């Protein structure tokens, strides 16, 4: 119950803070438009998968941008204002607070989905055939889960690094092309495909693409892989937070390496 209260408090605060940040508004409102416009003009409009990428892919890609940005700024802001340490000393714990913030940011980031849908269907006049809405929504939730697990792990990395923002962009772009958001993973060189197969988003993305192209049955296995990987990531992140905690006690600093 207490956790739920904290979570709701975080969600409320986060919504306020996020929208006072212009870069956040940019990631949520402009980036999706940028991606769908770019894809619209580059991709062949006749093919069905193009329109899925223009609509769905752009939305997912912007959500990833929002996620990266929010994780980085959360950590950097606490570090700059010197609250990173005081937050980590509260009884509820740094880990839980960061986790709540990430969920909150992901939920708020869903706005970019709305933006993409409206923009692509009204302005670009593209339609997305969804064969099974119920399944789509379910798979979509699994995608969100994979997002949350990845940004949770990302947050630990950013906490440990000295400059979260530099690292943020270093992580952001590879994930764009490794996870098949805007084009299929198949076109990557083989050895790069191996790397991308450990990324949960990649599998969730594959199942979603299958649903919109009318192959709901073959979408189950990738989703299972996504869930398993996401759980692994969460465990890894949890373990990393332990290490951070110990490091903090030992060295009395979270200032980075």
């Amino acid at each position, binding site marked *: 119950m207490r956790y739920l209260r904290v979570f709701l408090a975080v969600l409320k605060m986060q919504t306020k803070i996020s929208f006072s940040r212009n*870069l956040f508004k*940019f990631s949520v409102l402009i980036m999706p438009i940028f991606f769908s416009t770019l894809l619209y*003009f580059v*991709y*062949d409009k006749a093919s069905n998968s193009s329109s899925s990428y223009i609509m769905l892919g752009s939305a997912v890609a912007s959500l990833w941008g929002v996620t990266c940005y929010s994780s980085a700024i959360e950590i950097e802001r606490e570090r700059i204002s010197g609250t990173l340490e005081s937050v980590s000393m509260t009884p509820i714990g740094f880990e839980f607070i960061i986790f709540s913030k990430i969920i909150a940011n992901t939920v708020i980031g869903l706005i970019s989905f709305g933006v993409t849908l409206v923009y692509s269907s009204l302005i670009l006049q593209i339609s997305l055939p969804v064969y099974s809405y119920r399944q789509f929504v379910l798979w979509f939730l699994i995608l969100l889960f994979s997002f949350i697990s990845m940004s949770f792990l990302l947050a630990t990395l950013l906490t440990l690094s000295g400059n979260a923002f530099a690292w943020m*962009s270093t992580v952001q772009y590879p994930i764009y092309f490794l996870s098949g958001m805007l084009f299929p993973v198949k*076109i*990557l060189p083989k050895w790069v495909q191996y790397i991308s197969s450990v990324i949960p988003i990649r599998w969730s993305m594959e199942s979603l693409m299958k649903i919109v192209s009318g192959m709901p049955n073959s979408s189950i296995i990738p989703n299972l892989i996504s869930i398993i990987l996401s759980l692994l990531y969460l465990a890894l992140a949890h373990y990393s937070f332990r290490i951070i905690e110990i490091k903090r006690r030992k060295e009395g600093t979270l200032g980075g390496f």
Partner: protein
Amino acid sequence: MRRIAAFLRNSWLAFKGVSLWLNPQAYLTEKIVNPMFRLLFYAFLLAYGYKTMENATVYIFANAMLLSTISAFNGVGIIYFSERHQGTLIYTIMTPKSKFVVIFQKVLFHILDALITVTIGMLLAVVIFNFKFAGNIYAALLLISILGTVSVSAFGIFVSSFGLLTRDINMLLSIAESVVFLFSGANFPIKRLPFGLGFVSQILPLSHTVLAIRSVVRGNIWSGLKLSYMEIVVGLVYFVLSFFFIRFLEHQARVQGNSDLY
């Protein structure tokens, strides 16, 4: 002679005072690693969009150049923001020196810095994608990219000057960057843009550079250089505009009184 040395020295200090990338690790990340990932991303996207690597080649190469020239844009774009952040903006306003010189000194080294990035970008593109051109084509491409860098930096000053009024320059820079990127024609032919939006791309920087690059890559060096000449005109217009604009915004800053908020 001493005058020139002092001028250069000062331009260097102006750069050093606001540049974010003086630590070598951050510089490498910002100048090589991140552009490389971005380039890879766009290259794959284009390769998928244009079906074959042959179709995509010109676009990929233009993108490589574009990404690196845009780093000049971001470098310049952050100037007034950084001055505001450090509280030195008030002295930029208070100086009795000619604004023209002040602005020029501020951007000079950003442009030089960007030239390094452009060279690196070109090398990366050549190495990763195995482009093979004749020597004079490389030379022409480098020259065109340099001119493009100068022009986009002038545009950068223009956008940056909004930093005199607002502390939210980052958003503005990102939007401007996306717009330049979309309208440059580096990813798809400008002809595909509907309702005369092609005109917008004419008055934005880099669109002529992209055309020039494309024509040089196809072997038409001279027509490429001619197109580049238009790019310089665009850049010049932005530089002159920025000059008047900055004077106007400085006045505006005195009216609003927010030059030392951060």
